[in-house]
């Protein structure tokens, strides 16, 4: 999509890397980068497969949505972010959290609802938050993340001038999400206020079971940017390098010009909407097609073709990924449950007079609390 020549050897973009850096998939120098993409994609894949397994074992509760099939998009996007950038995303966010830098053990612990989870057990799979890595939350309400993400960009523009160092906001959403009011209101506000935010539509062709064609009057979703004069682009979300390069470029514009942009990354969902969904509504053909678009074998093939990778490397990369996933599970297992005495600790940020700290069934009043 873009074709600049500057190269970078670093995996995660640094502050400097954003100055019109671009990586060309055919060039020898990008070997490390591509391999690191591959490793991270494989790791996320195995993390998600394990999450699915742990859900079946009832270690994980609630709803659990996986990034299976979207790993190239996840990694390409996150690698193009800088440390200071803020990420707002959906309930389908394990991979993003990990790729933005959260400790996989703490992510798994959150899925387990444990005290060491990134959200201390309060959020679960759908609501990962990590102050450290600027992951500002996975949100379970469709479109719910978009207005706060937009406001975070307002705070950035309030405090920072456009520059190569300015933080930006990256706001992830699904295709189905572009049909809800919050999408429209937020993009318009971002345009009018010239906010440093990049909205990313991960178009996996499906809401839960409803296809983009059935849900959107204009199925080429990036075109909706035009309603707000927001520069938009549709890219192949199966190719981590294309995602990475476009993201670098779009993020840089947001950073250096403080204005909103929109990326639509075309992707595929390999499994059901959530772990419990058998996806019976998808035909065998459709599933086959999706599998053919699995970004991991695609990248493997490419890397082997470029001689960056041998079959034996794959085996060891997978083994390493599985091992890291196992330690994440082990960490989650040993982490304690949150302390029940802390039930009221997070309702407000400070203890209040007259707030209602009662367990179910406790009487409203203690007799001794009354002045006699």
């Amino acid at each position, binding site marked *: 999509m873009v074709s600049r020549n500057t190269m970078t050897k670093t995996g995660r973009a640094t502050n400097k890397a954003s100055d019109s850096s671009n990586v060309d998939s055919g060039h020898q120098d990008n070997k490390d980068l591509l391999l690191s993409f591959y490793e991270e994609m494989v790791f996320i894949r195995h993390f998600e497969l394990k999450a699915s397994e742990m859900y079946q074992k009832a270690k994980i*509760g*609630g*709803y659990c949505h996986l990034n299976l099939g979207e790993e190239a998009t996840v990694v390409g996007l996150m690698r193009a972010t800088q440390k200071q950038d803020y990420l707002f995303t959906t309930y389908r966010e394990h991979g993003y959290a990990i790729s933005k830098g959260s400790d996989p053990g703490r992510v798994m612990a959150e899925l387990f*609802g*444990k005290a060491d989870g990134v*959200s201390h*057990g*309060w*959020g*679960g799979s*759908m*609501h990962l938050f990590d102050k450290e890595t600027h992951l500002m939350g996975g*949100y*379970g*309400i*469709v*479109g*719910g993340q978009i207005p706060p993400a937009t406001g975070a960009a307002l705070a950035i523009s309030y405090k920072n001038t456009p520059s190569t160092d300015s933080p930006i906001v990256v706001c992830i959403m699904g295709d*189905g*999400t572009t*049909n*809800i*009011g*919050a999408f429209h209101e937020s993009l318009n506000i971002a345009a009018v206020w010239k906010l440093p935010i990049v909205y990313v539509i991960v178009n996996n062709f499906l*809401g*839960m*079971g*409803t296809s983009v064609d*059935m*849900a*959107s009057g204009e199925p080429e979703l990036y075109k909706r940017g035009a309603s707000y004069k927001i520069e938009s682009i549709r890219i192949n979300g199966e190719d981590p390098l294309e995602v990475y390069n476009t993201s670098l470029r779009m993020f840089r514009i947001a950073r250096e010009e403080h204005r909103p942009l929109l990326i639509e990354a075309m992707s595929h969902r390999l499994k059901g909407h959530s772990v419990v969904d058998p996806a*019976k*509504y998808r035909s065998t053909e459709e599933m086959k097609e999706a599998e053919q678009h699995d970004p991991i074998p695609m990248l493997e093939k490419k890397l082997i073709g470029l001689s960056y990778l041998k079959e034996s490397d794959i085996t060891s990369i997978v083994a390493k990924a599985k091992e890291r996933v196992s330690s994440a599970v082990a960490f989650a297992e040993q982490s304690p*449950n*949150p302390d*029940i005495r802390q*039930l*009221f600790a*997070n*309702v407000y940020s400070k203890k209040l007079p007259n*707030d*209602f700290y*009662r*367990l*179910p*069934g406790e*009487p409203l009043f203690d007799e001794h609390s009354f002045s006699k």
Partner: protein
Amino acid sequence: MTIKTYRQTLHDTLAEEMRKDPDILLIGEEIGHFEGSYKITAGLLAEFGPKRVKDTPIAEEGFTGAAIGAAMLGLKPIVEIMTINFSLVAMDQIINHAAKIHAMFGGQVNVPLVIRTPGGGGQQLGASHSQNIEVFYAHIPGLKVVCPSNPADAKGLLKAAIGDTDPVLFLENLGLYGAKGEVPEEDYVLEIGKANVARQGKDITIISYSKATTVALEVADELAHEQISAEVIDLRSLRPLDRQTIVESARKTSRAVVIEDDWLTYGIGAEIAATIQEGAFDYLDAPVRRVAAAEVPVPYSKPLELASLPDAATLSKVIHQILDATAFNR
């Protein structure tokens, strides 16, 4: 009578009514192709086709509002909002429009609309997906709110809601979909606005609705073993509220407790307690107590979530406290 789940009953009742009345159509996210998030509508797209089973974009405000407009022109739309939590994005259409249109336009047009939506915590869905905010709708003149606690009521109230000429919020519960019970086979229609004395008793009145009724009945059963006779009132309708039935029972038993899954402060139980103290003031031996959720955004962690929600043990404990305080002897 047949034994059926709550889910199956809802499904069968929808199908039955749709077969009778071609003006009924279903509108909601993932109700057709995906067969419903909780499978209530499974098979209905196949039977009735896409004209009558309309999958929607993710746009609760848009499609709920569209159902209002369709109802104004004489259709009988039944909207599914996937869970009550998502109704917050459609609230303006429900409260400022569905509830007001009949009155605000001087009675010229009706809005014969049913909005089906489940509430309920306890599923580890986290703070924004575990709410019981039916009190918002129950507060609004112009709306009706019904809340079946068992399969038979699900049938009787759904038929009533569909037959109604005004907007009805039909509250389901995630925790009830799998519940089984006897369901009358005939065309069984309940009257909206009438509570049900689900169990007769004389020592204490337990008031509940939706899933909490299951807990109330369970506790009442246990108490019977201790020679405590609890009367259970299942509200069935939150608006109109059958104050008469509640107060008559409280007058009879002279003790009352409310159990609900919602937060306590400004919850449904507040109105029940306020009503009883006014209507049964001279009859009560003890204040009306409320057993409700702890006032926290519902946590994901299972032990935390459990700690925040009311259960049978808690209800039982509170009942014993009331009985003890009122020198009840068996």
